[in-house]
C-alpha cells in the first residue's frame, strides 16, 4: 500500500473544506457549497446541515482498487452518518462505493455498505443495531478490489460484497450527514493505492512523522 492522500483536518480556525490544505495530496471538492467545515475546536471535519453530502479528494489514485479510511463518529439520530467513499468518479458525485457508520438510537450503531451508480443507490450489506454508541470514534476502512469490497471497523472485517458493477473510477472521498454539530465527524482521512502508483506518494515513515507532529 502507498499513501496517496491524507487529511487530519487540524486547523487554527474553522475552515471550509475547499479552503483546507490536506496533509498529503490534493484538496477536496465538496458536493455543495458550505457542506463541510474543518472545526478548530473539534480537530475534525463537520458536516453542515441535514442533507447527506459528499466530498472528493482530488488525488488520482492511479487505479480503481484502493483503500480509504477515516476515524468517524455519528450522532445517535438515525439520519446522522459519516463515512468514506471509493471508486468515486472525477467531476461528479453520482458514482461511488461508500461505507459509513449511522446513528441507530442511544447505545447502538449501524454500519452500511452501498453503491451509487448514475445516482441510483443500492444497499449491498449492513450490520444494524450493533452494541455501542455511534458517537464513539471508530476507524472504518473501505477496501476496494475487483473481487470484492469490504468494510472494516478498527481492523475487523464487518461487511463484504462481490459487487463489481462500478469500475474505472480512481478517486476517494467522504460522506456525511452531519446535522449541525461536531458529534458527527470525519477525521484522519487516508486514501491508499494498492499498486503503489498514482498521486503524491510519500514514504510511510515521513507520513507517520507528519502525523505525530500534528498530534
Amino acid at each position, binding site marked *: 500500500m502507498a499513501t496517496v492522500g491524507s487529511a487530519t483536518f487540524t486547523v487554527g480556525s474553522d475552515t471550509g473544506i475547499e479552503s483546507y490544505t490536506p496533509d498529503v495530496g490534493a484538496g477536496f471538492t465538496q458536493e455543495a457549497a458550505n457542506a463541510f467545515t474543518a472545526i478548530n475546536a473539534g480537530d475534525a471535519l463537520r458536516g453542515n446541515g*441535514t*442533507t*447527506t453530502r459528499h466530498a472528493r479528494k482530488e488525488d488520482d489514485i492511479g487505479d480503481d482498487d484502493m483503500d480509504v479510511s477515516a476515524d468517524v463518529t455519528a450522532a445517535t*439520530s*438515525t*439520519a*446522522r452518518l459519516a463515512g468514506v467513499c471509493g471508486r468515486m468518479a472525477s467531476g461528479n458525485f453520482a458514482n461511488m462505493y461508500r461505507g459509513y457508520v*449511522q*446513528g441507530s438510537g442511544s447505545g447502538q450503531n449501524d454500519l452500511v455498505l*452501498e453503491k451509487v*451508480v*448514475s445516482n*441510483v*443507490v*443500492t*444497499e*449491498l*450489506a*449492513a*450490520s*444494524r*443495531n*450493533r*452494541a455501542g454508541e455511534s458517537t464513539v470514534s471508530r476507524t472504518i476502512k473501505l477496501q476496494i478490489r475487483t*473481487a*470484492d469490497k*469490504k468494510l472494516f471497523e478498527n481492523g*475487523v*472485517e*464487518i*461487511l*463484504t*460484497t*462481490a459487487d463489481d*458493477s462500478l469500475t474505472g473510477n480512481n478517486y476517494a472521498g467522504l460522506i456525511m450527514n452531519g*446535522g449541525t454539530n461536531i458529534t458527527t465527524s470525519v477525521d484522519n482521512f487516508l486514501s491508499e493505492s494498492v499498486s503503489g502508483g498514482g498521486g503524491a506518494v510519500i514514504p510511510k515513515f515521513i507520513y507517520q512523522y507528519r502525523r505525530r507532529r500534528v498530534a
Partner: protein
Amino acid sequence: MPLRYYISNVLPPDPPPTDPDVAWKNSYRLAISDANVNAPFSYHFEIPPLPDQTPAFAWGLAICRTTVWTAIDADARNFRLFQGDEGDQETLEDLLARLDSRTMGALTTARRNNIRNKATGLGLSTADMGNTVSLRVILQKFARFLRPNFDETKFYIP
C-alpha cells in the same frame, strides 16, 4: 448468531422523510432491510442491476445473521429459502456443509413443495429440483438465476 438465506422482494427508494432527523432509505434494497428487528442484525444482498442500475428482478437473495427472526418471518415479502432445514449454523462453512448433506428428498413434503412453488412463482424451472438434488444446488439455482457467476462461498457475513 445463526445464518439463514432468504428470498426477499426488492424495495424502491423511499421518498424523503419530512423529519430531517429520521433516516432516509433512499436506496434499492430488499424488504429484509426494513424488518423491525430489535436485536443485532446483519445481512448481505444479491440484487443484480439492469444497465440503468435499477434492479433486474423484483426479488433478490439475502444471507442474514441475527437471533431474533420474528419480524423477518412475519413479513410475507421474505421467504426463508430452506424452511428451517438449514438448522442453526453459525459459520458459512457449517451452513454450506449442512446444505451439502441434505437433499430435497430429505425434506418434509410441505417444505419441499414450498421451495418448488417459490421457484415456480419466480420463473425458475423445477425440472432439475428433484429429490436427489442437494440443498446447496438448490441455493445455486436460485442465486445463479440472478447472477450466473454467483459463488456461494463469497456470499457471506464476516
